[in-house]
């Protein structure tokens, strides 16, 4: 009733506005029909693969059995959520997930920015391209192979183990057996994997900086370091902020593949994250509902974080996603 009345009241103005908006859109589509056409496949992709499956989230509240089908499977309410929250390892996996991702933001997020800044200063094109190619390459190596390499390098007599022994003067067995080393190993191997690839976007942002800014800085007698600090960095800040918002929005996300390839009972207390826990508990037993419930929980928290970071960013720097 209330909404009805409201509509009636504002009806007049809405009617007078609507044709105008519609006309604008219509005109725009006619004028720019080709870009619109290009966007259609992406829209369909989103509808089919992102919005379509969303109603499947309902299985988080059911005891889903594939052969019984979606509608036949019995409702169980919040059972799977309660199972997860009351599980003996709930706090540990949440804490590990957050810490691992914070480490990731602290080191993994800044590393490609630094690499891009340094590469931007390199004038020798040959050298720059060589470095870029070498740093991209690990991105194309399969994760299983990467994990195998980590296993070999951190084994009892592996080169990383020996290097660490040489630096610290202490004796180490296989490094993957120390729970306090798991996060550094995970995060720094991650940086090695992705630093080149992730620096591309920053390099692209730097490429579009107006050269007159640098000329002006030159006139003022700024050193290279000063130019980097006062020209390059502020110019790519919007890119950094946007990517940072995404990174914070992924704080509760956790891929399990690399974890389960690297962890073992000795490192569970730092390595076991939501993803690996659900893998052991949910996927191995094919408990699809349970996995969905945990996934939904993580997604909700992630969305909250994303929204929060975004509003802070909007207020502080006027750069934001929406």
């Amino acid at each position, binding site marked *: 009733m209330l909404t009805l009345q409201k509509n009636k009241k504002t009806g007049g103005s809405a009617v007078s506005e609507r044709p105008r908006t519609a006309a604008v859109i219509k005109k725009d589509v006619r004028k720019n029909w080709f870009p619109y056409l290009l966007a259609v496949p992406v829209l369909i992709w989103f509808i089919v693969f992102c919005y379509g499956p969303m109603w499947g989230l309902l299985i988080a509240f059911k005891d889903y*059995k*594939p*052969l*019984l*089908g979606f509608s036949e499977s019995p409702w169980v309410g919040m059972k799977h959520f309660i*199972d997860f929250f009351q*599980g*003996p*390892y709930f706090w540990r996996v949440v804490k590990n997930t957050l810490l691992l991702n914070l480490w990731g933001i602290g080191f993994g997020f800044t590393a490609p920015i630094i690499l891009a800044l340094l590469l931007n200063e390199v004038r020798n094109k040959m050298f720059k391209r060589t470095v870029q190619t070498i740093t991209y390459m690990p991105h194309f190596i399969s994760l299983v192979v990467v994990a195998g390499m980590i*296993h070999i390098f951190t*084994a*009892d007599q592996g080169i990383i183990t020996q290097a660490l022994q040489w630096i610290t003067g202490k004796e180490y*067995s*296989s490094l*993957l*057996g120390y729970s306090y080393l798991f996060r550094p190993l995970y995060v720094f191997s991650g940086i090695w994997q992705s630093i080149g690839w992730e620096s591309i976007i920053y390099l692209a942002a730097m490429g579009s900086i107006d050269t007159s800014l640098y000329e002006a800085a030159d006139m003022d007698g700024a050193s290279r370091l000063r130019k980097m600090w006062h020209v390059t960095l502020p110019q790519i800040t919007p890119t950094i902020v946007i990517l940072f918002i995404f990174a914070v929005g992924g704080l509760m996300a956790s891929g399990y593949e690399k974890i389960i390839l690297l962890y*073992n*009972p*000795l490192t*569970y*207390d730092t390595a*076991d994250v939501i993803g690996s826990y659900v893998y*052991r*508990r949910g*996927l*191995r*037993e*094919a*408990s*699809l509902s349970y996995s969905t419930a945990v996934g939904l929980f993580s997604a909700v928290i992630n969305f909250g974080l994303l929204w929060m970071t975004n509003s802070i960013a909007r207020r502080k720097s006027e750069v934001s996603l929406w």
Partner: protein
Amino acid sequence: MNIRIFAKRAGLLAAVSTLAFSTACSGGSEAEKAPTEKDEAAGKQEQVAFKDIGSDIRGSEKPTQQQIDEVNGTLNDTYLGDIFDQPIPSDYSAYPVEGDVTLDVWMAAPAEIPDMNKQQVQDQVEKLTGIKVNFITPPVGQEADAFTLMISSGELPDIIIDPGRYPGGLEAGLNDGAFIDLTDLIEKNAPNYNAWRTSDEMRRKTTVTDSGRLLGFYGIAPYSEWMWFGPLIKKEALEKTGLEVPTTIDEWHTFLTKAKEVGYTEPLNYGSSYGQIFTGIINGAYGVWDWTFMDADGKVGWGPAQPKAKEYLATMQQWNKEGLLNRDWATADFNQRMATAISDKTAIMMDSPDTMWSYWKQQNDIDFVGAPNPVLNEGDQPQVSYKNFMRTGSSAAITTQAENVEAAMAFLDFGYSKKGWEVFNYGEYGTVHLIDADGKPYFPADSYIYKDPDGQPVATTLHKYRVHDWPNIRDEHHSNPLIVAEGSYSGDIRKTWTEEMDASVTMPPITFTQEEASREAELGNQLATLRSEYFAKIIMGELPVDAYDKFLQEAQKMGLEEFVALHQAALDRYNQR
């Protein structure tokens, strides 16, 4: 000759002579194929009477092409002997199956077989049964995910090999409508399986559910297979230390210490990331079994919660501190573990003698001996928590989407016939196996198994020219080339272990109801994580032995009692079967 065998042979002779008189077939003196009781009772008509070719095939080392074709291309099994306590059934009335039948079979194939649809033995089975088979095989290493995806898709093949993968087990699969109940169909459509599984009480008991239903075709051996896992000592280490094979924990300690002195820097290869801290070998001496076990009163217990656990952990922590264990036991993968095994660091492995025969002896010429599991006090009988309840190989279930259930059953039933026993275990006649004078198949020295034309090792040919894991009558002791190869002593080690060790603590193959299964999985998962973590950390020295008390408290808080009660209930039901 002992009395039993004599009596058996005499009985056989009587049966043979009756048959010889009644059918008056040529070469009757060699014939051994007496009709089974069941056939007579059912009054099976039109069982094709085969020409007895026993005298030509038995003992022949150079069969003619015609003979080879007859053995490989027909169902004639008159040359095969009855070498087990119970004769293997041979009802071939269903073959060749009429009409054009193609079955889809989902199966996780061994990595050694690039294309299951071109597997030699399966091709032969297709010809003999007249049933075409289309194998659906998931990528190696992704079997579990592929299975889940297949079930989730709702599109099922006709037959699923290893249907126990279904979450909650076979019975859950039946309740969810994935598999069909075979209870009323087995007798009619799978006469060989039916006769074989009922010919022995243990076979009957392990292939039926608590509620008396028959849900699948289980691989059933003619005997309980030897245990396959235990301590193995390099012969050289015995010579260098000048010590006997150790039997008690104290002797083990002495042996390992001495071995370290003579140059084996990490004498005991204790385990790796794929989990061999818990093998029941050393912990078993303390009664701290890996998982559930059955105590002397037939009650279920949980190994890690047993009274001597602290003693076991203290000993292991001490050994680890003294450098008697491989340093990377918690993290090494299979390749790293085997690399250490063949190096000069290792004196003792805890693994399968078949595997080590391949890695140590065949590939690196390292001789070894088997040792019994250690005991605490001199003179105690070593114990082991592994026993094979004649259930071996693989299993199969027929899905609700199978169009021709009869054909699917006939196809699976072939594995339980005499011809199937020969074909699956010993492969093709002529190139792969021959038949000895007693009618028993064997691999001659120049068999493709040992001398593959493509040059592949035995570990591969054992999957290529025969079938190792299948719902059938698996004859491991006579047909696993790693055991029967000339010079291999892995079979002897396994046999000695089986004979000398007491396996009464072993849990029989129990089953859970659907509700129980999901609770059992949840609790089991949490307890396994807890156990792995605490035990590994205590042995590593990262936690003191007293941390065990906290472990036990947490285990109880998680629901250890409920977990054990679930197993007890399932065991009670098993005993009632």
